């Protein structure tokens, strides 16, 4: 074990060294190779690259803007805007089937995210300390559901639940979502664990921490960003899954994707719902970015006083 980890560490440090060397070598060349005549060309590439970026952003965000705009349409059509109204929001909050399917979708997404994040993280930590053979075998098995088409997972799970005679419903829905979320959590946590310095955890143990404390105070804080990534991935996977949900949901457990699939006529309440999702996500992003800045400013203000 010790050998393996030191070898790996050595490998990482070698990589870092070689990277450093190449950047060092490049720098002087870059500085010298920047005569005045070349500036217009550079200007052009900058314009080109920024317009390319703008095009990509438009391509990604225009559909969302379009969708939000039409959620306020006073007509029924998803393609001709008749005027501003909130009727589709009203319709959304009156449509119980739709509200329930949003509710089911969110509950399933939250529970399966929490469970699969915990299980996936623990599994990844365990695997990182496991024997090489076990680790490779388990990781290969873990890759299977990621590469497998959804439909295979869906029907496989359905047959499993049928054979052990569980009535399809909330339980089977959540179990099936957990099963396809875990591999993604493991995949996002594993690389971060590989970068960790084993000595830090060992030092914590030497300094008298219990293994549980070493796990929660030392290892988990270090891999927290990867856990968050895994959780977000799991959440969004669960939120927009259709095939697996369809085959494993029971009576009364429609998810929003199943609701949309069974629609006969296009209903702008779907736009209203999507708009609400966009607003919530945007608010969360805004808060996540603003809170640290505000905290920093507060800390800066307090510092001079303390000094």
């Amino acid at each position: 074990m010790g050998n393996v980890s030191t070898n790996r560490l050595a490998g990482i440090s070698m990589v870092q060294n070689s990277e450093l060397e190449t950047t060092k070598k490049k720098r002087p060349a870059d500085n010298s190779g920047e005569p005045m005549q070349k500036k217009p060309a550079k200007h052009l590439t900058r314009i080109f690259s920024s317009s390319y970026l703008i095009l990509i952003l438009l391509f990604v965000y225009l559909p969302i803007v379009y969708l939000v705009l039409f959620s306020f349409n006073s007509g029924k059509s998803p393609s001709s805007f008749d005027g501003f109204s909130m009727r589709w929001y009203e319709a959304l909050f009156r449509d119980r089937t739709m509200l329930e399917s949003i509710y089911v979708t969110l509950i399933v997404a939250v529970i399966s995210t929490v469970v699969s994040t915990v299980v996936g993280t623990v599994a990844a930590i365990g695997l990182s300390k496991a024997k090489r053979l076990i680790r490779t075998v388990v990781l290969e098995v873990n890759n299977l559901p990621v590469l497998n088409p959804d439909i295979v997972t869906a029907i496989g799970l359905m047959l499993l639940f049928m054979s052990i005679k569980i009535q399809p419903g909330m339980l089977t829905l959540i179990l099936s979502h957990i099963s396809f979320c875990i591999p993604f959590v493991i995949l996002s946590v594993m690389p971060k664990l590989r970068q960790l310095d084993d000595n830090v955890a060992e030092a914590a143990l030497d300094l008298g921490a219990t293994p549980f404390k070493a796990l929660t105070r030392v290892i988990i804080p270090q891999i927290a960003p990867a856990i968050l990534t895994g959780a977000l991935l799991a959440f969004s996977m669960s939120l927009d899954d259709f095939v697996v949900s369809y085959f494993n949901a029971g009576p009364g457990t429609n998810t929003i994707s199943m609701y949309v699939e069974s629609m006969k006529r296009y209903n702008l309440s779907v736009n209203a719902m999507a708009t609400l999702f966009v607003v919530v996500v945007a608010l969360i992003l805004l808060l996540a970015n603003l809170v640290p800045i505000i905290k920093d400013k507060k800390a800066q203000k307090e510092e001079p006083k303390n000094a």
Partner: protein
Amino acid sequence: MPKKLISALLLICLLCAPLCSLADGTLNVFNYGEYIDDEVIYNFEKEFGVRVNYSLNSNPEEMYTKLQTGVSYDVVVTSDYMIDRLIKEERILPLDKEIVTNLDQLDDSMKGLYFDPDNTYSAPYLWQNVVLCYDTTKIAPAKVEEKGWEILLDPELDGHAFIYDSPRDVFMMAFKALGYSMNTDNPDELQEAYDWLVKMKQTIHPSFVTDEMIDGMAQGEKWIAMMYSGDAAYASMENEKLAVWAPTQGTNIAIDCMFIPSNATNPEMANQFINYVLDYDNSMMITLETCYTSPNAKVLEDVTAPGGEFDGVEGYLPRMGYEKDEIYQYVKLLQAETPELLIKVQMQ
């Protein structure tokens, strides 16, 4: 940290609580999407003190798969030929005639369908036929009325047609155009129908879609569509240029019925629900919301009478008592072969 975890788990349990508590006094209804007026469900809940778990379905084959997985529904709405199949497979509970008394409000043509002559197992929910819905500014009505299904072989319509992406309906059209029964079990006729469809595909290159065509026709995306009369009625109410025509070669009368699967957990309430839906007021609300034809004789009379909601709406009232029109039966050959053949047609 553990405290936070525990509180998080508690929160999740709290959120789940309403879902778990629904377990008793519930009625599981499985119906097509947007095929009911929600008010009917709410009123039923209030009147009978149960909670209706309403699940959505998009076609009979999916419904059949769902039933096979062992899901227990109390009331299911599905199409005629699928009920024929389920009755033959003995997967349906007989209706309790003591509770379902509103069967006598049904229109005579809806009573005693071929698969269930005494309404022992099923009660009609809504019905319709398959029609041509076309834009009168692009295609002359006289031409459509003369040619019927054959108009789909007209090269002028190249790229301007919607065809319903449903194997039985598409083959029905070909059988009718060729003058055969749509419930044939003759492989040669099936082959001829296939050839007809290939010719149609190569001549007009239609878009094979499902429910997208309803909005598509309402917005004038295409000139002609083969669609269900209820959808055509809705589209023609949205778009004045549209006209509806049931070809004289005959078409399909499709009747969606309610039934109680044999593994239902609450059959008594299911009977109550079926009876409730058959009643005049509720039948009226459902037909007004969906634009599909009601099987309730009085409702049918009232909405099509002068001044009624569907007075003069072409396509609302399907052609009745025409000898060339048929109802789907469960024909093994067609059930087995048409899905694959349709894919082959689409790939031509």
